[in-house]
């Protein structure tokens, strides 16, 4: 090994300065030690505001490009899309379609979460349960829910139960895995403190484990929601017209076949808006009220 030659250094010494002592004046007005943020600082701090600005910019770009292209069959303008959206919501079937989709979604989401809760409870209370959950998640998590659709159709027929089955599959594993990870990550001190108060069993899980693991659980719920939403729209595109009550995906498919492109865009806008509302409003609010307020997450 080569010997290390130190770089030549100028032998600096710090200058010697006079000492001083001060009496600090009492902080009377406490002005900059603690003060509420100004309105502007509040706005700039609000992620919603910043993101909203970007959305507005994108909308302007869309309108300019579509007007320039001037081909409503391929790429309708923003204003056409918005008026189609208004029409669809007020006079047309769009609202009904959205309702159908959301109903299926909520059913599947709720069942998925209930199953996930059962599986994780089993997993935290026994080693067999933990192994079972680990194995099942490893097997099914990589399997896109939509791939199960043909099988679901075979088992449950053309209709809502098939859709619910697929959504349950897409929610269950993400939520279960995240919840278990969250539980396992709860620090030893938190656990011991909880036991110290005499908490056992269900009360211990509900009052200590769940809140302590909440960041992880919430991210599981978000991932589960995202999976479910995409899966559902895709599944409805494939089939979805079980009875009169097709969903949003079916609406897209139908309107494309009728070459009503502005309606297709209106439908897509609905898909985006609902996705944004849930993610940007519901989940953001939950996050702000919980883990960010508690300092368990930044951002």
């Amino acid at each position, binding site marked *: 090994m080569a010997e290390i030659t130190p770089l030549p250094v100028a032998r600096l010494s710090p200058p010697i300065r006079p000492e001083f002592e001060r009496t600090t004046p009492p902080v009377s007005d406490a002005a900059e030690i603690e003060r509420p943020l100004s309105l502007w600082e509040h706005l700039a701090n609000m992620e919603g505001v910043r993101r909203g600005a970007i959305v507005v910019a994108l909308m302007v770009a869309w309108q300019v490009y579509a007007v320039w292209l001037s081909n409503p069959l391929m790429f309708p303008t923003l204003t056409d899309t918005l008026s189609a959206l208004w029409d669809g919501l007020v006079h047309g079937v769009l609202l009904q379609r959205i309702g159908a989709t959301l109903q299926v979604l909520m059913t599947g989401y709720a069942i998925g979460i209930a199953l996930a809760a059962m599986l994780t409870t089993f997993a935290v209370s026994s080693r067999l349960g933990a192994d079972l959950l680990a194995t099942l998640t490893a097997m099914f998590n990589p399997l896109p829910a939509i791939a199960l659709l043909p099988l679901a159709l075979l088992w449950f027929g053309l209709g809502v139960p098939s859709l619910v089955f697929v959504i349950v599959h897409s929610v269950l594993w993400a939520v279960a895995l995240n919840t278990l990870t969250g539980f396992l990550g709860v*620090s030893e*001190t938190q656990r*011991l*403190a909880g036991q*110290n*108060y*005499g908490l056992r069993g269900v*009360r211990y899980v509900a009052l200590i484990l769940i809140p302590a693991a909440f960041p992880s659980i919430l991210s599981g719920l978000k991932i589960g929601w995202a999976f479910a939403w995409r899966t559902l729209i895709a599944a409805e595109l494939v089939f979805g017209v079980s009875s009169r009550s097709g969903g949003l995906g079916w609406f897209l498919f139908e309107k494309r076949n009728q070459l009503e492109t502005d309606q297709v865009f209106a439908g897509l806008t609905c898909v985006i808006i609902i996705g944004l509302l849930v993610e940007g409003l519901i989940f953001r609010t939950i996050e702000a009220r919980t883990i960010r307020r508690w*300092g*368990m997450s930044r951002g």
Partner: protein
Amino acid sequence: MNAATMHPKDQTYPPSYASPLLEVSGVTLQYKTRDLLVTATRDVSFEVYPADRFVLLGPSGCGKSTLLKGVAGFLKPVAGFMRLNGQMIDGAGPDRMMVFQDFDQLMPWKTVLENVMFPILVSRRFPRAEARARAMASITKVKLGKFADAYPHMLSGGMKQRVAIARAMAMEPAILLMDEPFAALDALTRRQMQDELLQLWDDTRFTVLFVTHSIEEAIVVGSRILVLSPHPGQVKAELNAHQYGHDHQGGSDFMALSQKINTMLFAEGHHG
């Protein structure tokens, strides 16, 4: 050895002096890991009397925390027994409140006030209606009244430890268990907290079992010191330190005691 024989007629001690509050007798504690059986403490016996500030002192890894976990009921002894007020210790319970070393012992999802109220509410030690007032009184005692509605992440490390102490004291436990509660603090805050703890003790005369590996802290905080040998922990000595506080630091008696413990802990440590 029975400590009761040493001051049989001392009138300043409460009448219950004759019977120890906490009795630890021949306790061996072990950890079973996947491929290892670790004996943390071997055949440890001591007695804690009411209003004692009983310190467990020993080098790192000698099993002080483990002993405290045993008393708290998180660990079962493989030999010996532990009795609190004559009752066998079996499992964790709110009559023994633990203050941990780490700052993350507070529940981040609750405010300071809620954190302090929480054990009172879930253990039903006191009526629900009293919980708030008791918690508030305790928080005021540790001088955090202004921060009752703050969340733990907004507090400094020392403040968090104060909240943990307030939470434990609000429960008025039979015995307070403190595992190096000031170890993660800077020297200045640590000293201040030691003084505050002594002040609190002077007010309410609680019983505390206090773990530290600082000899100085043991002498200042403790009224009686149990010196443990290096791993696996065995009792080396039990010494009196009730006569020393911060004011005596640097005094010759204080230094002598400190030196004595130092020799005890480290003299033969290299052979064993």
